[in-house]
């Protein structure tokens, strides 16, 4: 069970709320996914999104507001402060975008914003790269969760740097780690969980599927399978075949 800032969550699947064909389809996807945490964006709907937010709130899940679309620390901090007022939670998924094409996090702005927000009592979930130094600094800044990307937001490419993600898991065995962004398929999500990640956050993979609710169920199954496999302690990989039945003792004819 992932524990984020002292709150234990049953489901390791966190689901975004953007880009679904309708709020009804979104609600169906949440029901099938079993997700208990929904990310919700404040920025683009600023000044008129109350109806949509009420629909999200009626899902009965915990809200994780994000600062999606913010391009600098100051903007992200202001958005986080507004989100705390609007949604009544001090949880914030901190996104500071550094590059327009790839939507890569601006890790410098991220760190600056994380420091300010942590000092203001926010519980910060930083969307970051898998860079060990960056992650170390984010922990120093007061983050108790890390959310490294799998691949660029909305790309569906999966886990671009499995080695880096594994190294991060090994470096911070006690920090809740969530793969955020880039997941396209259940197998990507399962792979993250098999590495020992605590949770997976995805949005487009479900919202942009032909049947979002069915994909949400598939993601949920894959994440459970990946988690169970991690806990079952998978066998080591070897380059040589190791037969499961002994060769010695067979009749040689």
């Amino acid at each position, binding site marked *: 069970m992932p524990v984020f800032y002292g709150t234990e969550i049953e489901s390791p699947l966190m689901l975004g709320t953007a880009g679904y064909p309708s709020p*009804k389809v979104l609600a169906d996807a949440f029901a099938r996914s079993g997700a208990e945490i929904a990310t919700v964006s404040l920025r683009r*709907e600023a000044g008129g*999104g109350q109806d949509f937010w009420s629909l999200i709130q009626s899902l009965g899940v915990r809200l994780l507001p994000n600062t999606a679309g913010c391009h600098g620390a100051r903007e992200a901090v202001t958005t986080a402060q507004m989100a705390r007022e609007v949604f009544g939670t001090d949880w914030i998924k901190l996104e500071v975008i550094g590059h327009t094409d790839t939507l890569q996090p601006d890790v410098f702005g991220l760190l600056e914003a994380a420091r300010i927000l942590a000092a203001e009592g926010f519980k910060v979930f930083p969307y970051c790269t898998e860079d060990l130094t960056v992650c170390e600094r984010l922990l120093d800044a007061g983050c108790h969760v890390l959310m490294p990307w799998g691949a660029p937001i909305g790309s569906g490419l999966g886990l671009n740097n499995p080695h880096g993600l594994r190294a991060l898991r090994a470096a911070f065995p006690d920090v809740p780690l969530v793969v955020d962004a880039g997941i396209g398929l259940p197998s990507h999500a399962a792979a993250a969980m098999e590495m020992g990640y605590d949770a997976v956050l995805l949005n487009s993979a479900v919202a942009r599927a032909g049947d979002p609710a069915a994909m949400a169920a598939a993601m949920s199954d894959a994440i459970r399978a990946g988690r169970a496999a991690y806990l079952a302690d998978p066998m080591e990989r070897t380059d040589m075949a190791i037969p499961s039945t002994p060769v010695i003792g067979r009749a040689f004819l």
Partner: protein
Amino acid sequence: MTLTILGGGVMGLCIATELTRRGIPAAILDEAPSPQACSWWAGGMLAPYCEGESANEAVLRHGLGAADWWQAQGVPVTRNGTLVVSLARDAGALARFARRSRGHRMLDAPGIAALEPDLGARFSRALFFEPEAHLAPRQALAILSERLGRTDTTAGTVIDCRGLSAREALRDLRGVRGEMVVIRCPEITLSRPIRLLHPRMPLYVVPRGDGVFMLGATMVESDRRGRPTARAVLELLSAAFALHPALAEAEVLELGADARPAFPDNLPRIRRVGGVIHANGLYRHGFLLAPAVAGMVADHLQHQTRPEFMDADHD
């Protein structure tokens, strides 16, 4: 039967027209069509197959008759189909759109050039939805409106078609903001709506004649009606530029924004609340679905049937 229709946008006008056509007089309580109506800002595409790519199947089923209905009311309807294209780097998006929709055939560059000479050199593949059509929304509203009677008091049965303004009675209605740009670009000729599939900035361009084009439309979960944001205009114009660089030389005639009324499944509803019949929630399918919803309202009034889009009565 005395009927008063509240709201002179596309929903109210279609219901009044349909009732009048069936010999039931209905008067509209509203001003003549104006920028106050959300349908004023519409694209006017009658594109049930394209919409069917992402919308509920009911949109396709009930949208198929729209072009005939509008034409039967004397509204000019252009039946040239729809062309759907994607940029070379998003070729997968076109294949996916083809897989998830029907009513189309794939064209190669000569095929595109034969339909739209200005696009033939720019795209090597396109989906052609031949049965689709489009109309000019403001003209269509004006044609229906000028034939209908008006009133300034409610009498008899009230049919409320006020879109988002009816929200106090329809608690599950929400606004979905849309922003649009109208440009004039005599350098380019297009004969049908063009849809550009783009992962970030999907765009449609609807020709209005005389080198005028409507570019639309954003979809933002917000009921704010104010003017378009810089971001929306930037995205629409950037996507237009990607469709054809000559569009960058266009004159910007108009920027518009409004909020579409929508229910949680983005399908329309006919609903009795107390003594009032509401017809609302056309979402982005105003001109496409209003004729079908109008038919359902008329059926309900004439034969007491409970049509597909009618839900449980509310107090």
